[in-house]
């Protein structure tokens, strides 16, 4: 679905990523894994066409035969609105602090797909319930909720929208083990039932093993290894990947 070729991002003379190559096949769960600061979130920004203004970028990000990096702002806006949902890494700053959650959840989900408030209320209640959240959250402001609750609110919107492509940047970082497991199950169900393509960014190899089909390993701004999860796990090539796998057990 998305092909990243030779993606190099440069900010103020500093290389953030260099010659990044990987593919996100349609209908699969692809996992991007790598150390902190290796450029994962920046790569996501590039996929969305939302790099900082001072970023210099070269290479290709092909989406349905078009290079996202050359697309106009309007084009990207409509692509993001129609096909993609992104759960950002920092959930606690992902909501406007002075607007009630209910309105924001609606803007992220119901309004986007053209549902009325009533339809939204009904559908969202079910999803929140599945994620262990009470309906009360819609009456609260973001600063009254915990980081994990906010993360689940974002996840709820993603499940509501059922986008063609779901990008999730460390979506479970603030969740406990039980919730994390449930989320992974929901993610797998979304992929199987709705055929949603998923890019899952994580530090956690257990999650990769459980959910992902494909994986790419990133280190210091470069992709050091790609392949299906089985091949990489059974036969890692790069020293960094080996270290990662060893530390798992």
């Amino acid at each position, binding site marked *: 679905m998305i092909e990243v070729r030779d993606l190099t991002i440069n900010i103020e003379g500093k290389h953030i990523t260099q010659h990044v190559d990987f593919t996100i096949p349609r209908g699969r769960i692809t996992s991007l894994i790598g150390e902190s600061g290796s450029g994962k979130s920046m790569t996501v920004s590039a996929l969305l066409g939302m790099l900082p203004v001072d970023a210099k970028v070269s290479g290709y990000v092909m989406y349905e035969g078009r290079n996202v990096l050359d697309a106009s702002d309007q084009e990207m806006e409509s692509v*993001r609105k129609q096909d*993609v*949902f992104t759960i*950002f890494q920092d959930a606690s700053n992902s909501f406007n602090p*002075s607007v009630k959650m209910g309105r924001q959840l609606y*803007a992220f989900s119901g*309004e986007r797909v053209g549902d009325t408030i009533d339809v939204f209320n009904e559908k969202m209640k079910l999803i929140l319930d599945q994620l262990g959240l009470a309906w009360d959250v819609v009456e609260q402001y973001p*600063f009254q909720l915990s980081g994990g609750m906010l993360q689940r609110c974002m996840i709820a919107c993603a499940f509501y929208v059922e986008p063609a492509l779901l990008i999730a940047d460390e979506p479970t970082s603030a969740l406990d083990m039980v919730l994390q497991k449930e989320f992974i199950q929901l993610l797998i169900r979304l992929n199987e039932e709705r055929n949603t393509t998923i890019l899952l960014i994580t530090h956690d190899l257990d999650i990769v093993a459980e959910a992902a089909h494909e994986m790419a390993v990133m280190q210091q701004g470069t992709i050091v290894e790609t392949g299906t999860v089985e091949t990489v796990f059974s036969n890692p090539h790069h020293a960094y990947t080996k270290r990662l796998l060893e530390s798992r057990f």
Partner: protein
Amino acid sequence: MISKWVGKRMVMGIVVLFIVSFLSFFIMQAAPGDPAAAFYGGNAQTLTAAEKERITRAYALDRPVAQQYIAWLGETVKGNLGTSSKEGRPVSEIIMERLPNTLLLFSVTMFFIIIGSIWLGTVAGMREGSIWDKGLSTFSIATSSIPAFWLGILFIYFFAVSLGILPSSGSGDVEGNGGVIDKISHLIMPASVLIVTHVGIYARFLQESIKIENSQYYVKVARANGVTESSIRKGVVRNASIPYLNYIAMTIPSFFGGSIIVESLFAWSGIGQLTVKAVTTKDFPLLMGSIMVTGILVVITLFIVDLIMYAMDPKMRKGGAR
């Protein structure tokens, strides 16, 4: 929550008014001549002994200064601001005649400044790097460098002397021949002078706040996920307007200062012109009264701005800080 917050603001306002009252009282004490004369007014000779006796007792004029202050404060709170030494009328009466004009000028100018600056600031702040963005910065520095009263003099030259389409001074009279039109024609020049010299800096402050708000993480998240531009904009402007309101609150005192001068230039018969007149004619009771009233006006305005800020910022309302 609200009652505690309001209480805190009230205490602050009362402290300010106390300082202003010290200042007023100090003027009376320091004024040349007998401080008591201030209360007798210009027609001290015509008062009967009984009346003098009554005034002396009311203001504790035969007692130590501290007691005089308390007595004076008591009278002031009751609304008795003494008698003008030049006009021989109660100060409160004179001020009440003037107050509507000052309130009119203040509310009209503030209304247009706020509307104009929100419009300019939003347009410029939302289009970072555009001509609007860069132009507004220059425009605001340039216009805020113009002395308002000088612009007023130029306006008088063009619109009153050369073109003769607007009156050069006075504040018009709704009951007179001209009616409302007359009032408006007198209002146009003082109001527009204040608007032109102030709208820029307020707009610029909002523009900067919007730019800062626009770079927040939540805006990026919303843009990435197809939230409509209009609702993103609404959220951004709303959040940016809290520091903007705070800025208005901080500059209100100097704005009042500026309008004193403009009132004098256009002989707009408001509190500002009255204050200046009291200084030049050394009418101390009148001066004390107008200072007190200006202080009260500032405190009330700040209180209103604070209330709006409080209503707009849920974090303040819920007292929640993460």
